[in-house]
């Protein structure tokens, strides 16, 4: 069997309770436990390090010791499925949501979703955003039927907790202070240029952008946003869409010209 050494080796790496596989030797001892532990430690410590670099705010919130313990359990239960470690931890927020010892920090999983989205935005495909000048030239009569493909880096995380404020205060973006206005915040994460931006969306903004991202027209997206929140303000959200560089293109309805005649 060609795979024998790998299978027993791999199984023992992720389960420290298993004995060292047969056939593994050292020059000076019958059971080279500390030597095999080097591999065990490399695997798990390396994965914990990858999670720590992707979820620094989660580590700040729960502390290094708690984070390392939680990350070790995750790493041995859900090792990566790909050598691309930048994408490792996409399922860490769901793991945190179900991780009983963290249940007294109810916003933790949502902040983790925000951090996971930041990495995806960082590595997303590049695309030049549509400039404000092209929006200014649009024919007002067709604007409701226009579709706007979103920038590939666009990510939206909805939460019933003030996740953007919590993230900003724990990442050093904002001074740490008691949060007086404890309210739901929807996060917009995008990287239209070099740096990843994180913003709080206005009321209905998340529903508006999610509808546009799903291929709906401006009119349909605005209706969805109003249904989501009565305070939805189309002008303000359009300005945000354009100013944040979220539009990758403008697509007119069939057989119509984009510009005013």
């Amino acid at each position, binding site marked *: 069997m060609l795979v024998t050494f790998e299978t027993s080796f791999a199984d023992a790496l992720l389960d420290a309770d298993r004995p060292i596989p047969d056939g593994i030797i050292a020059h000076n001892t019958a059971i080279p436990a500390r030597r095999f532990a080097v591999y065990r430690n490399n695997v798990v410590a390396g994965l914990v390090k990858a999670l720590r670099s992707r979820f620094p705010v989660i580590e700040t919130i729960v502390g290094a010791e708690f984070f390392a313990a939680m990350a070790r359990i995750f790493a041995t239960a859900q090792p990566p499925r790909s050598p691309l470690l930048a994408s490792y931890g996409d399922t860490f927020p769901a793991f945190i949501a179900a991780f009983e010892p963290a249940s007294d920090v109810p916003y933790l999983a949502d902040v983790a979703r925000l951090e996971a989205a930041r990495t995806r935005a960082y*590595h997303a495909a590049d695309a030049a955003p549509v400039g404000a000048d092209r929006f200014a030239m649009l024919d007002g009569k067709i604007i409701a039927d226009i579709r706007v493909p979103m920038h590939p880096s666009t990510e939206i995380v909805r939460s019933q907790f003030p996740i953007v404020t919590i993230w900003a205060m724990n990442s050093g973006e904002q001074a740490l202070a008691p949060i007086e206005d404890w309210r739901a915040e929807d996060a917009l994460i995008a990287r239209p240029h070099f740096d990843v931006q994180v913003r709080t969306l206005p009321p209905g903004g998340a529903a508006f952008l999610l509808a546009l991202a799903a291929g709906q027209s401006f009119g349909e997206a605005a209706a969805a946003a109003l249904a989501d929140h009565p305070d939805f303000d189309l002008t303000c959200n359009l300005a945000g869409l354009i100013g944040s560089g979220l539009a990758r293109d403008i697509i007119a309805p069939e057989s119509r010209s984009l510009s005013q005649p």
Partner: protein
Amino acid sequence: MSRASHLPASTGVGFKPAHFDDIRAASQPVGFFEVHAENYMGAGGPPHVQLSALRERHALSVHGVGLSIGSMQQLDQAHLARLRALCDHYEPESFSEHLAWSSHGGAYLNDLLPLPYTPRTLARVVEHVDEVQTALGRQMLLENPATYIRFAESTIPEVDFLTEIAKRTGCGLLLDINNVFVSATNHDTPPLPYLDTFPLDRVREIHLGGHDEETDDVGAPLLIDTHGSPISAAVWALYTYVIARTGAVATLIEWDNDVPDWPTLRAEAAKAQHVLCTASRSSSAA
């Protein structure tokens, strides 16, 4: 296999984004840069902006850590395609990978794991190296591993194993001198006979890096390949020994953990450059 590995015979360093501005400000930072392939497989973003800027001005070595060439399983075809896209885009002077495995049963284990050296594993690794060189349309370099244990079933010395792979596939070798020293210490074997029998004519790149010192179950020295400290005096001595025999060979300083500031890393590269220059002078005087 069309393109042979052709790094300049000078010293390079592993590229770290924290050093980007210092590198841009330097007129002649180092002879080449090496990057881990898997860090540049995202669709876009700052990593590609920086690597493109670096590539415009410098020789480049792409060093894979995730292909699992030493596995007895099939190579991950999606990963091989990503490597091909990366090499096609950046056209590095060299592509290298490890005599090790890191994936099993669909899980990526994130370490360079050892394999037994037998006729059967040899045949499998040869197939994998052939497959990589065909897919990439270029010669690859295979690196000797740092190991902490051995397999009872091994029947072929590591040097013979590597020599045979190079002979059968035409691949070049990446000689990691820190790995030689780490493995020799860990298995209580002398490093010089290893180097004396190593096929130095196949070596297209040398790696130098730091290691940590621990002890094993019975208190014997156990060296860990950590790339997190300066290169030890013993490794410098072995490097000088090798360069006296090979002449100048592309040499990389690997410093991946506790990464120092740019001047410190640059100084470590300058030490290696001094060894290379001394070798060049004595060979041209001979």
